């Protein structure tokens, strides 16, 4: 675990440390193995991975990417967004709208253009903002543009008027709450509380076919890997060093001649786009997108995943997301069902008290204490900021 920079005048640091390599190995390995085990092995064989598990894990991976997007701005820039769920949901809606349009005449009313919910609320024609979503490239573009644009506008205002700390956190929460209320309204034309569901196929493949699920899983894994490499590259670039500097001493950064707000804005938008991608991959795998994804509670939960895994460690965020959600899956069935909230709540309290740096953060500390080495990720263990 030697830092590339220990010799004067060394080349810029390698993109991946061991930690990153391990992480990628696992994710990419899963991307190959899980679908293989699902499709190639006969059901009932010891190695067989049931489809149920594939889409479940796929869901976890989307959450992992979402958590990573939060870690990028929280762990490295100190922006605590309590509204990240909004970007996730917007990406999800963009994908959901595409999937709705794909249903075509197979809706219960057999209307070629209008989704069912519009028919029985007798809407006459498609609202303008639904145009184009029947064309995949456009929808795919919107997956990035919708959350990106929201982040751009919101961030542009917030960062240049130097809203920071809890104030920023609370208005991000207000933002997602406003969107929650807006999308609940049936008049908005997004299916109200029921949201978008009963999808048939994506790019011509049946969303429920095992093959499609396997591919979606693999894609989620690749997206996560890509997201990791991207974030990793960003935080290790000169740009990323400025981000961390902003987190630790924003005023100093300004006096050093950097436009802190622009740096924050770029990071914020990138993070929003990642969240959007996560949402887009999430929707076809869980089969529904509805306004509850906007609920502030969801966004807070994302923060919790990151904290559990270890803030400012990227891989930790992903790990936290998977662990917490697995715990949720596990606790919510069987004898534990009535008590799972105790366990989840207890887990959060315990982590904050005993693992303030999260699982990975704590581990990295432990390691750097043992093997005398600089942290692999710059600012891996940030001092508390908000």
């Amino acid at each position, binding site marked *: 675990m030697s*830092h590339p*920079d*220990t010799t*004067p*005048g060394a080349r*810029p640091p390698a993109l991946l440390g061991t930690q990153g390599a391990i992480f990628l190995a696992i994710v990419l390995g899963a991307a190959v193995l899980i679908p293989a085990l699902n499709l190639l092995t006969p059901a009932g064989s010891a190695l067989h991975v049931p489809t149920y598990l594939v889409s479940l894990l796929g869901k976890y991976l989307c959450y992992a990417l979402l958590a990573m997007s939060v870690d990028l701005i929280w762990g490295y820039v100190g922006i605590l967004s309590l509204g990240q769920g909004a970007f996730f949901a917007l990406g999800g809606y963009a994908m959901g709208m595409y999937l709705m349009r794909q249903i075509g005449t197979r809706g219960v009313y057999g209307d070629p253009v209008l989704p069912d919910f519009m028919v029985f609320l007798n809407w006459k024609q498609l609202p303008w903002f639904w145009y184009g979503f029947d064309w995949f490239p456009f929808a795919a573009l919107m997956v990035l543009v919708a959350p990106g644009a929201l982040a751009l506008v919101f961030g542009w205002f917030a960062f240049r008027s130097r809203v920071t700390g809890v104030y920023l956190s609370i208005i991000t929460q207000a933002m997602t709450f406003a969107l929650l209320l807006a999308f609940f309204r049936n008049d908005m034309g997004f299916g109200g509380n029921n949201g978008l569901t009963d999808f048939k196929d994506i790019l011509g493949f049946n969303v429920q076919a095992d093959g499609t699920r396997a591919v979606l899983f693999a894609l989620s894994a690749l997206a996560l890997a890509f997201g990791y490499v991207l974030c990793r590259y*960003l935080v290790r*670039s*000169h*740009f990323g*060093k*400025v981000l*961390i*500097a902003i987190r*630790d*001493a924003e*005023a*100093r*950064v*300004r*006096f*050093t*001649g*950097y*436009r*802190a707000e*622009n*740096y924050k*804005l*770029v990071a914020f938008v990138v993070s929003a786009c990642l969240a959007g991608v996560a949402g887009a991959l999430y929707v076809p795998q869980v089969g529904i997108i509805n306004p509850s994804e906007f609920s502030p509670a969801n966004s807070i939960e994302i923060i919790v995943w990151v904290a559990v895994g270890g803030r400012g460690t990227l891989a930790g965020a992903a790990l936290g997301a998977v662990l917490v959600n697995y715990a949720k899956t596990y606790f919510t069935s069987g004898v534990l069902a009535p008590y799972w909230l105790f366990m989840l709540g207890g887990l959060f309290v315990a982590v904050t008290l005993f693992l303030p740096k999260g699982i990975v953060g704590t581990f990295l500390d432990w390691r750097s204490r043992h093997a005398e080495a*600089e942290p692999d990720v*710059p*600012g891996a*263990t*940030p*001092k508390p900021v908000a």
Partner: protein
Amino acid sequence: MSDILMAPEAANPPRAITEKTLTDALLYLNGVSVTFDGFRALNALSFTVDAGEMRAIIGPNGAGKTTMMDVITGKTRPDIGEVFFNGGTTDLTKLDETEIATLGIGRKFQKPTVFESHMVIDNLRLALKGQRGALANIFRRETGEERDKIDAIFETIRLSDHRYRLGGALSHGQKQWLEIGMLLAQDPKLLLVDEPVAGMTDAETAQTAELLRAINANGHSVVVVEHDMTFVRDLGVRVMCLHEGSVLAEGTLDQVSANERVIEVYLGR
């Protein structure tokens, strides 16, 4: 050493502000007043700093030294008064911190603020004069001469052995130097240095004085705010004493410390 003590402008008597000085002065403050709900931090403060000059500013607590720096660096907007840079070409009161910093005014805070979770070398890399744009810096690569510059600075601030330690891990004195190093990396026309030797050993203090003189020697104008009189003496430059937000006396340290009113202020008679 001595040549710096005998530096021409050090001997000059205090000058009234005239059109002439406005045009050649690097920094020019005129009638600057700042009020924080009732309390007058700066009171019609006027003075100039010439290119290549080093100026020490002393004064009791609450004399407005830090506020003055805030005004110059754009952290605080003056209620009235003008602040010009580059011989009256640029009005600093219209600009924000970032713009002023890019103009070439560097600032070292009273409490040393370095980027604690960055390695020392990265602290310098960040400060190094050059590309400041967000997008451009995503793909930025470090050039050869940038590396040489940094090495040079390491020599100047005597931290070569610490380049890969975290900024937070440095001692107080080392942080002070690192911060000065960062100022050098920024290569500003004017350095504002706020209490650089607070909490330093005598040895360190002496070294710091030397360091600042060196910096000033190769063309940077420096404004130092300091309490420590021995340090100011070491610097051996024109001294300006602030009191209640305006200039009380100006001249060599001996002239100033001989000044009746200064003594009054300091000994509070």
